[in-house]
């Protein structure tokens, strides 16, 4: 038999692959593994089904500027009367009295008739955008000052202004001339907004939080502890292998199950949302970048939590009880990260960093997301600004689930930084878990 040269790598490889393989096979024979994986799959499938249902339904079109209503009962919608210069409040003043008389337009012509025409990207300062599709602003009967109610010198436009306050946060304001983009297409907007909100929410809550915490909670706490309890640890510890090594390889074995599972569910999610999602294209290829980030962030989360919970299992027989406060803390941090992605507290969490990866990817894939949210919140009511009443369906959830990666970093840097931090956390928990295990007396 030809002997291959001995090296540390080769002996590491033998031990590592033996333990990893062993752990994989051991978990495969456990019923609890299949229960946990099955529950995770069912939970996410249900959310996917709800999403498909939402995407398949029609979003009610709202006549935001109420110009399809015939207030004076003369048979002509208000919008048509305004365009043609008759009094929409007077039944005796309508285009039917013109010579030649004009037939009334169908009401539907005045619903969603002035959709968003924004072509700006987010940057500091004042920008002019928007176009009056239905001509109720560009109406020749209006005076110059009536056409420029926002007073920026450009008739019938919208002023989008971004500015930075002394606290470092960005603020935005929208000031539209009366009648510009005032009746957007709810179905188009809400479908897109809800699609993005869904991808972000299922990515953050369903994948990173739910899978990221519950898989390790049930599968990693027992990696060392179960062996110690059943006495089978004696077989492993009777071999020339350091306990810190054993700790690492067992965790890698658990990742050998969890990672393919997360990847498979992520691909399922990408396929479902890619085909069922909004938009004219057959498949939303651009979203794949976000799904990739979701998968990656979940993998990192399961790695760090795996190390942590494995260490907690070593620490105490009922390590799962110790893990629960951590899980609760992380849940709080997940919610905090959506509300206040710059909170310092987030730096002391695992999930805060993992979610940052998704936020950064969302920023790359949907660069105008902030503007899009702003648009939806504004909802066409040029004067109400942040008035909730006028905001479009989907803008609220989208605003909640999306956030800027903290630290004021660019998307790409944020991804790298958070990945490094997560790897560092995993290493720390490995170190702690290994040290605890090393100092543990085993009966």
């Amino acid at each position, binding site marked *: 038999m030809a002997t291959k040269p001995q090296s540390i790598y080769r002996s590491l490889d033998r*031990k590592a692959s*033996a333990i990893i393989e*062993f752990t994989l*096979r051991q978990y495969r024979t456990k019923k609890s593994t299949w229960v946990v994986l099955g529950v995770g799959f069912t939970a996410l499938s249900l959310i996917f089904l709800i999403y498909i249902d939402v995407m398949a339904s029609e979003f009610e079109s709202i006549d935001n500027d109420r110009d399809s209503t015939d207030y004076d009962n003369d048979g002509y919608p208000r919008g048509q009367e305004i365009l043609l210069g008759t009094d929409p409040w007077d039944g005796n003043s309508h285009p039917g009295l013109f010579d030649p008389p004009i037939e009334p337009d169908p009401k539907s012509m005045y619903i969603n008739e002035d959709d968003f025409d924004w072509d700006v990207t987010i940057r500091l300062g004042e920008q002019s955008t928007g176009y009056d599709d239905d001509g109720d602003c560009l109406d020749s009967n209006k005076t110059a000052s009536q056409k420029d109610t926002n007073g920026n010198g450009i008739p019938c436009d919208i002023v989008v202004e971004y500015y930075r306050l002394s606290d470092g946060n960005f603020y935005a304001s929208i000031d539209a001339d009366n009648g510009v983009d005032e009746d957007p297409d709810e179905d188009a907007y809400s479908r897109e907004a809800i699609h993005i909100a869904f991808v972000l929410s299922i990515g953050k809550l369903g994948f990173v939080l739910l899978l990221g915490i519950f898989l390790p909670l049930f599968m990693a706490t027992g990696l060392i502890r179960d062996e110690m309890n059943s*006495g089978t640890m*004696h077989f492993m*510890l*009777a071999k020339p292998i350091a306990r810190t090594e054993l700790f690492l390889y067992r965790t890698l074995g658990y990742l050998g199950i969890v990672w393919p599972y997360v990847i498979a569910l992520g691909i399922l999610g990408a396929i479902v949302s890619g085909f069922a999602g909004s938009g004219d294209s057959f498949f939303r290829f651009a979203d794949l970048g976000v799904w990739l980030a979701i998968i990656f962030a979940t993998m990192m989360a399961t790695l760090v939590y795996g190390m942590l919970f494995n260490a907690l299992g070593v620490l105490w027989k009922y390590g799962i009880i110790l893990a629960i406060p951590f899980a609760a803390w992380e849940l709080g941090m997940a919610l905090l990260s959506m509300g206040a992605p710059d909170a310092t507290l987030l730096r002391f969490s695992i999930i805060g960093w993992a979610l940052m990866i998704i936020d950064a990817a969302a920023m790359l894939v949907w660069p105008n997301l902030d503007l899009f949210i702003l648009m939806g919140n504004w909802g066409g009511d040029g004067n109400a600004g942040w008035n909730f009443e006028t905001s479009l369906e989907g803008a609220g959830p989208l605003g909640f689930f999306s956030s800027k990666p903290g630290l004021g970093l660019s998307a790409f840097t944020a991804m790298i930084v958070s990945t490094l931090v997560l790897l560092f956390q995993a290493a720390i928990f490995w170190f702690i878990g290994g040290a605890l295990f090393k100092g543990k007396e085993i*009966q």
Partner: protein
Amino acid sequence: MIPDFDQQGKAQTQQWEPEVAAPAILLENVSKSYGRIFALSNITLALNGGVTGVLGMNGAGKSTLFNLLMGKLKVSQGSVKLFGTDPWKNPAPYARVGFVPEHEKMYDWMTGHEFVSTFARLNGLTRDEAKGEADRVLDFVSLSDVAHKKIGQYSKGMRQRVKIAHALVNDPELIILDEPLQGCDPLARTTIMNVIRELGRMGRTVLVSSHILQEIERITEQIIILHQGRLLALGNLHSIRERLDKIPHRISIQTEDPKALAKDVIDLDEVFGISFPDGKNLSIQTHNLGAIHSRLPRIIVDNNHKVSTIDNPDDDLASILGYLTSGGGV
């Protein structure tokens, strides 16, 4: 039949350098306590080569001793060295040690072969080498025919043997067996005893524990007796026995006519007392157990007594311990 332990398939040489001529096992003033309770107190011991039996009642400290040797417990005082290295701090010596734990729980979902070969890889063997080793050691413990059955389907004796096989991977110099005969049927017992004796003949250092004297007696003469955490005796079982023979012993004989047999043995010098517990039994008190045992068969045969059993109710660990703890230490 006996495989060549030096054949190819052996693991790589260790990069770690053992202390020159360090004994396989060296314990110096070792104590292990839990709070104020001493599981082991002040044990000093050096072992190198041969089969040594560790005798002791349940709770005498046998498992504590083995767990200290296997680096699972940390000594409270003193030092434990395997081949000159402290096993609590460094697992390197286990490349040269095989351990058969007492615990019954095993990986029932694996086949015997998978179990042995998987754990062989922790010795640094490649997958193929490990499979070869598994074949070899399973053959050594006569389990080849069931090697590919699930451990869950094994009998108690097979489970013990597969544990032993797992410990023999990589041809260890020191093999530690914690109660390997417990719960085994007679056939398995014989196989396991033969395996242990064979290992001793091959020059390995073997440490085997039991709480049954007769078991150990069939394996080895060199024994360690632990009692309440203390090292009560260390040495040759025969020398301990000879001294035991000098103390009063009972021999219980079940026969059809105890009175007739009593007549024939009463005149022997070694016999100093006789009693009849019931109509079928004769109990002889003696100072020299060995002499009686050598003479008794002749007497029985010559006088045509119908004897169904001869029993030494005192010849067990409890009575040896009783003798040793009453001040007669070896």
